[in-house]
Each structure stands twice: as structure tokens, then as C-alpha cells.
């Protein structure tokens, strides 16, 4: 490294930056996880009202597994979030690429329309979608809930992917095409891998939005398509009890365990 020899400040400057970034990230993760830690601790609290600490118990976990409607709602939420994430990623990624790649006649209008669901108040989206579904006779249920969730989720995927595309070298696709790949193949083999970080980011956002949505879902759901936020919001009326904390704790622990386990499997397969 001849540069470092002539400029001794360089490595230390970089190091400083690295330390700053690491420390800052750690602080932000603490900020993100402080309420989660509180929530997990309170899942072992014997007090019913989730407010002051009384004593340690596992009761809420036992009660959680005996609570059919809550478990069912959690399952439904996972199904709906997965379905709407898959659809959102397909529509969002494809749309972002096509709008980037081609100059469509109405691309500006389409672009603006994509952003509308992000700004549309939930109550308006819920009621107007319900009116639409009722008019066309589409029966309320999982399908309608997933349709609604995709509608407000896919713009997030599209915007994230578009940001990534802006820095993409146009020569990349040209090269693939010059090598005789069809445009579809070029997209799949060259563009998608390049967009992967943004697609993952978009998928995570879509999944999260779906897991947490209440008002739109209320209007377009049926009796069987009850989701977790609806169940939880109902419980607030009689007091949120630590059973819900237990559920959240299991969720987080399971996800983290899944991440670690999948990494482990990957390592094994290598």
C-alpha cells in the first residue's frame, strides 16, 4: 500500500470511522431492542396487567398455547404476510425494472400512482376497497386481505429497488444481451442478483407492513381471516396481558434461531 506509506493518517482515519460506525450501529440496535427486552421480561411477569413487576412465572406461555383464537390469528398473519410479500416482491421488482429499463408512454403517471397507496389513509383504503369488493361480488376472506396488503406493500419494494437501479451500470445488461441472452434471461441471471440487497430490504418491509396492519384489514376480512393485530387490538379493551408478550417473545426468538440455524445449515452444506 504505497498510499499509506506516504500518508500515515489514512489507516487511522479509516479505523476511526470504522469504530464510529460500529459504536453507532450498536447504540441504534440497543434503541431498537430496549422495548423488546422489556416486552420479553414482562412475558414472565405474574401480574395480569403488564404494568408493574410482581413475580416470575411461565404461566403466560402455557395460557398462550391454550388460547386457540390467538394462535390461529398468529398463523393467519404469517400466511397473509408471506403471501402478500411474495406478490409484492414480484410486482414491485418487476415494475421497478421495467419502469427503469423502458420509456413507457405514461411512466410518470404510473410512477405517481405507485406512490398513492403509501399516502392514502388506511381508513379510506379499507372502506373503498370494501366497496369495490362488495360491488364486484368478491367474497371477503384471505384473498381480499392479501390483495389489500399487496396494494400498500408493493410500492415499498418498488421504491427500494428503484433506488438500487439508479446506480446500476447499463452496460451490464448490454453485455448479457451481446452474449446472446434473451432479455428475460438477462434480467434473471444478471439484474436480479445485482438487485438482491434491495429486494431483500423490500421484502422485509413488505412482510413487516403486513404483520402490523389493522385498519385496512378490518374492513376487508371475513370471520375466518382474523389477523394478529386485530386480535391484539381487541384484547386492549380488557387489558393487554402478558400472553401477548409471550407470543411476541416466541416470535422473535424463533426468527433469530431460524436465522442462526439456516446459516449453520449453509455452512454444513459447504
Amino acid at each position: 500500500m504505497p498510499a499509506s506509506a506516504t500518508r500515515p493518517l489514512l489507516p487511522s482515519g479509516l479505523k476511526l470511522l470504522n469504530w464510529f460506525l460500529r459504536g453507532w450501529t450498536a447504540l441504534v440496535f440497543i434503541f431498537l431492542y430496549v422495548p423488546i427486552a422489556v416486552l420479553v421480561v414482562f412475558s414472565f411477569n405474574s401480574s395480569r396487567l403488564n404494568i408493574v413487576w410482581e413475580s416470575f412465572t411461565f404461566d403466560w406461555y402455557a395460557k398462550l398455547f391454550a388460547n386457540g383464537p390467538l394462535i390461529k390469528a398468529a398463523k393467519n398473519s404469517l400466511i397473509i404476510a408471506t403471501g402478500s410479500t411474495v406478490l409484492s416482491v414480484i410486482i414491485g421488482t418487476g415494475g421497478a425494472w421495467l419502469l427503469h429499463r423502458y420509456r413507457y408512454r405514461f411512466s410518470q403517471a404510473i410512477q405517481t400512482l405507485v406512490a398513492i397507496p403509501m399516502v392514502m389513509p388506511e381508513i379510506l383504503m379499507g372502506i373503498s376497497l370494501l366497496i369495490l369488493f362488495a360491488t364486484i361480488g368478491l367474497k371477503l376472506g384471505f384473498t381480499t386481505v392479501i390483495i389489500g396488503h399487496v396494494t400498500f406493500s408493493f410500492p415499498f419494494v418498488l421504491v427500494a429497488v428503484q433506488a438500487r437501479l439508479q446506480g446500476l451500470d447499463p452496460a451490464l445488461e448490454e453485455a448479457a444481451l451481446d452474449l446472446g441472452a434473451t432479455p428475460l434471461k438477462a434480467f434473471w441471471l444478471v439484474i436480479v442478483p445485482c438487485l438482491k440487497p434491495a429486494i431483500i430490504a423490500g421484502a422485509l418491509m413488505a412482510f413487516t407492513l403486513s404483520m402490523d396492519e389493522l385498519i385496512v384489514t378490518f374492513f376487508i376480512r371475513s370471520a375466518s381471516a382474523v389477523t394478529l393485530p386485530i386480535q391484539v387490538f381487541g384484547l386492549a379493551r380488557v387489558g393487554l396481558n402478558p400472553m401477548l408478550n409471550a407470543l411476541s417473545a416466541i416470535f422473535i426468538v424463533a426468527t433469530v434461531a431460524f436465522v442462526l440455524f439456516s446459516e449453520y445449515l449453509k455452512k454444513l452444506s459447504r
Partner: protein
Amino acid sequence: MKTLKALLLALSALLGTARLTAADEVNLFGWSEYIPQEVLDGFTSETGIKVNFETYASNEELLSKLVAGGGAYDIVQPSDYTAEVMIRRGMLAPLDPAKLPNLRNIGAQFRSLPHDPQGKFTVPYMTGTVGIVVNTEKVKDPIKGYKDVFKEKFKDRLVVLNDNREIVTWALYSLGLSINDITPASLAKARPVVANWVKLVKVFDSDSPKTALLNGDVDIGVVWSGEAALLWNENKKFHYVLPAEGAHMFVDTLCIPASAKNKDAAHKLIDYIMRPEVSKIISDKFPYTNPNLAARKLLTPEQLANPASYPASNTARTFRDIGTAAADIDKLVTDLKSAQ
């Protein structure tokens, strides 16, 4: 509008419109956390009729979903003033008393209320009031009515329901005006009162006002009696009083929409819920005022002693539907709140 309709119809052809209904099912649209699951399970195991239970969290949610065209329900659970407007609009089917023998268990005073004077369309499910809950460890002054609550002394120590009609109602009561006859003149009189009150409040919360009280962030609340009953169960320092100036009583009802497909099963479920032993299960879980006098006999003395569930004297009144005045109230309170 025509082209829009044509477009929608074309779409419906595209997406297909399969609708299935089973004879032995009843679709119930009720308040969340108000009907215990075991009651519904008990009904299903006895009759073989499956209950599809969907929930809402406010009367307006119920109405919005019905008006926008959602769901085909056999039983709905509106409160008094909402039932009133539904009756007026022909949205409810008359009940068949012959199919509801357990109606005799319901107290007479709950069967002839203004929203349904002859009890033709509604059956009371549970009732409650809006009153004052006081943390007596922190507040030693006697609290009898709204005028004792909304004082400069208690600034930032109050939680009240986040419901615009409620706060205007309390102001009207404190002025000795009618709570159901809302006129521009009465709102003009209520305005300065509400303006003063809004400044004193620390938290507006309709969903769980008990939280701020239990946390100790506030010491006095004007809340639903159900919340106050839960607070009393948690700690006896939380006293409940019905305001001397007058209080709001709500009656949540069970009724059958005119469009219901399975009215027979709906009657069966309503009658099942009115059985004393079934109604007792509901009271055990949710400490509201039970209008089912036969069920009250099965309650423990402790349950009956909860002042929030069974207040000593009850001069409270129910809400009537106020039509377009609801928008004026909303504007008034929004205006005053945002002026802070």
C-alpha cells in the same frame, strides 16, 4: 358513475363470484372481547350450529362495514343509539318473542328504553355507564361530579375518553342542558366549558384509559365503567362514582339484521346467551352491569359489590342518535384540541 358501474361489473365477471352458505352456521358480528369463546363453543356443542365470529371495536366500525357492503351477518351487537338508527333505516329484522323464552330473565327497566321502546328489535346484552374513577390514595378531596374533576388543581392529572361526543355530553350535563338535543345554541354554550376542560387533560384514551391510572401518570379518570371495574379488581383504591350532574349509560344489544340468512339459528343463539348460567359466564369474564336479573342471582356478593359494575344509584341516561350534529361535535372538539 355508469361507466364506473359497468367497469366494476366487468371485473366481477373476471374474478368470479362464488358464494357459499351453509344452513347450520350463524355469522356473528360483535364487539371484540365481549362474548367469551366458551359461550360460543357451548352453543355449538349443544346445537351443532357453527358460529363464525367476527369482531369490531366501535359502533361506527360496525356501521361502516355494514354500509360499505361487507359481510352477511345473522347477529350484530350495536349499542343503543346505533340500534336506534338501524331500526329507523330498516336495517334490523323484528325479533320473534316466541323463539326467545329466556327474554323473561331480562330486567323490565332494560326492555323499554328510548332506542327501542317496545323491545321489538333488540335484546339487551350488557350495560354500563361512563363515570369518574378516583385514585383515593392520591386524591383526598371529595369527588362527586364533573365540576370536582375539571379543576385547575388537577391539571395534567386527568385521563378521559378520547371520544368527542362523550366530552361534549359531560359539558352539557354540567350546564344542565339536554344531552340528546344538540343545537347550535347548546353547542355554543358548551364550547367554553369544553375549551377549559381540554387544557386540563393529560391523556385522551378510549381503548385502555386504565393504563395511565395504573401507571400512576394520572389520578382521576372519566372512563367506561368496565375499565373502572377492572381497576377496582386490581386495587381497591380506585373508587368509581357516577357524576352527580348526570351520566351516560350505554346498553349494548343483540339484534338480527334484516338481511340475515339464518334468522332461526340467530334466535337460538340469542336465547342461549340469555340463559342465566350462560349470562353468568359473561359476567365472570367481563365486569359490566348485567341486565339479566336471573343471572345476577348467580353472581358472588363480591361481584355485586363492585361499585363500577353495580353502582348504588343509577340515574344515567342513554344516548339517542343525533344525526348530523355528530359532525358539529367533531368539528368543535377538533377545533378546541388543536388550538392548544
